[in-house]
């Protein structure tokens, strides 16, 4: 009983995702994004880095990277705490 309800829900989710896939913009033609164009044109002059992706990760959006570093630190803390009695 429970399994059949889950199965119906899964089929609904899959159907909605595939319908949404047909409704998306065509592959290879994204919407005009002024933010990305600004980054591409000005990143070299403002941060001095040739790689635009790195300049976004570490300069324009540094808070994301800070959160990522915190998550990684917490994961290591969790693993070390789980095995505290096994590993000396």
């Amino acid at each position: 009983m429970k399994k059949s309800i889950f199965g119906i829900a899964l089929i609904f989710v899959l159907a909605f995702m595939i319908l949404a896939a047909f409704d998306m913009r065509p592959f290879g033609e994204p919407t005009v994004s002024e933010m990305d164009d600004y980054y591409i044109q000005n990143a070299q002059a403002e941060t001095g880095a040739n790689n635009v992706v790195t300049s976004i990760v570490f300069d324009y959006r540094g808070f994301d990277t800070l959160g990522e570093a915190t998550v990684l630190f917490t994961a290591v803390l969790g693993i070390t705490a789980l095995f505290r009695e096994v590993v000396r």
Partner: protein
Amino acid sequence: MSPMVAFVHIAVLVMMIIAAFLAVILKNLLSAVIALSAASLLLSLEFYLLHAPDVAIAEAGIGAALTMAIFIFAIRATKK
């Protein structure tokens, strides 16, 4: 996009879906993890074809060695 590049995109995506399907249906856990590694490899090739070499290197460095190592440690510790 030339038709050859389009063919390569579609071939890589189809192969990745086949590998992911194998990772789901195989009973032997080690075989499932091998199929997952193949799916990760083909996903990295797809990132490469979509002109994202940064993400391709990250997926290569993490999906090739580290994910496999972690899964095999877990399988080894939970084997009857």
